[in-house]
């Protein structure tokens, strides 16, 4: 589907190759684009504090291995490796406050 801006706020809205002249809605305008997820970028699924980091850059990790503890929502949450790989970069330090979706660690598939 494509859209082009027209005069009077009317947009061209394509559904099944047919073009319609219509108005948009607030929520439709606010929708976010979808991006393919990079599995190697481990980001915070919830905002919180980095309680402890267990790995170092360059270290080999196995799938399921504990990488760090993220203190959030009154819980110590384990952040684990999604696959066997090497820690390429650590973006955080212990005690750091992180926001949701902030990248914590980059892993490289091995």
């Amino acid at each position, binding site marked *: 589907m494509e859209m082009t801006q027209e005069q009077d706020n009317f947009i061209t*809205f394509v*559904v*099944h*190759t047919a073009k319609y002249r*219509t108005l948009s*809605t607030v929520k439709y305008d606010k929708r*976010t684009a979808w991006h393919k997820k990079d599995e190697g970028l481990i980001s915070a699924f919830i905002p919180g504090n980095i309680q402890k980091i267990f790995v170092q850059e360059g270290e080999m990790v196995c799938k399921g291995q504990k990488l760090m503890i993220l203190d959030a929502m009154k819980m110590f949450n384990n952040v684990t490796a999604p696959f066997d790989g090497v820690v390429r970069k650590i973006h955080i330090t212990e005690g750091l*406050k992180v926001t949701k979706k902030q990248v914590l660690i980059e892993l490289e598939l091995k």
Partner: protein
Amino acid sequence: MSLKQKTQDLKKRMREALEGGGDKAIEKQKSVGKMTARERIIALLDPKSFHEYDLFVEHAAKDFDMDKKYLPGDGVVTGTGSIYDYPVCIYAQDFTVAGGSLGYMHAKKITKIMDHAMRMKVPLIGINDSGGARIQEGVNSLAGYGEIFYRNTQASGVIPQISVILGPCAGGAVYSPALTDFVFVVDNISKMFITGPEVIKTVLGEEISMEELGGAKVHAEITGNAHFYSESEMECFEQIKKLVSFIPWNNTRKAQPFIKKEPKVKEYQIDKIFPTNAKEPYDIRDIIRAVSDDSDFLEVQELWAKNIVIGFGRINGDTVGFVANQPLYLAGVLDVDSSDKAARFIRFCDAFNIPLVTLVDLPGYLPGIDQEHAGVIRHGAKVLYAYSEATVPKITLILRKAYGGGYIAMCSRHLKADFVFAWPTAEIAVMGPEGAANIIFRKEIMEAEDPEKMRQAKIKEYKKKFANPYVAAAYGYVDAVIEPGETRKLLIHALDISHDKSELGPEKKHGIPPF
């Protein structure tokens, strides 16, 4: 004591209780543009119709020195009255008394009036203005909420339930309104959320104001939690009165008939409103007004999921529920939100014996990754479920596009519409001509010397053959192809014929709708 003295004593007690939280608290309430609980009830109900109960109820808390505190009426006003002579039960939380916080007796008063509404089978109106659970009363506050939610659920589909949010309504408290049929919000006054800005800031580190998080606009426009939005409390009360006039007292009745009035034909002339070109927009509400008594249409959830229009109107004095695709917004597609919006409304109408009039003009479902991932399958299924389940008279009018799954979903013959009418401009087909021609004549188009020319020729060919109401009419899926000018006449006739319609589905405890 003489009777006179006893009466004076009563009056004194009443005066004390009616003071609510006292001058200071009342002043504070007014300074933020809010009315007091009793002022609200009086403004909403018919003059002199309100009778208050449980004025002398006192709270039951003992801990934290609460036993030394006097909370008049325990922070909530309950009673009975009428709106346009319709009997109603009502409660209004009194923010001036302990912040309208909900404790054991406060909840008891509410559940008592709810039980009363259920036994008397009259609508229940709840005005919410409360800081939330009364922490000093601990688990009894939680019990109170639970008892309210249970009754909201039991009353659902038996009596109309209306929630008015005139202050904060946070945490668990939001679930009572969410369980009721209609939620009214007022700009700058209503605030609804599960976790407030404070908690969000502490836990998530995200900063947002109350208004941005759960203000009236947000719930009217983004979440769909609210059904009616207004800019002042008085405007809100007018909306409630109007709604009450459209709906029946309970599920064993029909809505009260109203004085019959012709539509304002001069303002709403179908041939002037309606573009025959299926790609051009128009406001479907003008068509609704063109066929409704006095061109009066009460739109529900006007600001949310604008691509579908729902609401109440009257045809020949009787209330009907309109469900209509709105070509003015997003070409009138069905999507996650519009499906939710329509499905719930259909079920309300079905529960309360309100015939459904469906106006169809949609290109299909909204394509997009966000839609698919938001579960447009299960949300879209709600529309099919609600229409199939509904046993009230179902009248469908196809104005222009009725393609594919959208055609089926919008109360087609196949979901057991009682009457299916189509205008000569209707295009009832498996998909739009462009898409269909591309698939059916793919080979011819690809192999043609001038593919674009061939494509256009084939689209034209398909359009001529299938983009009309006559193929569906030939199978009896459409009962009658009618002139637009005849629409109101036929709607009146169809409603007359189906006045005593009764239909029973298969015996079951309850269905399992795709919630």
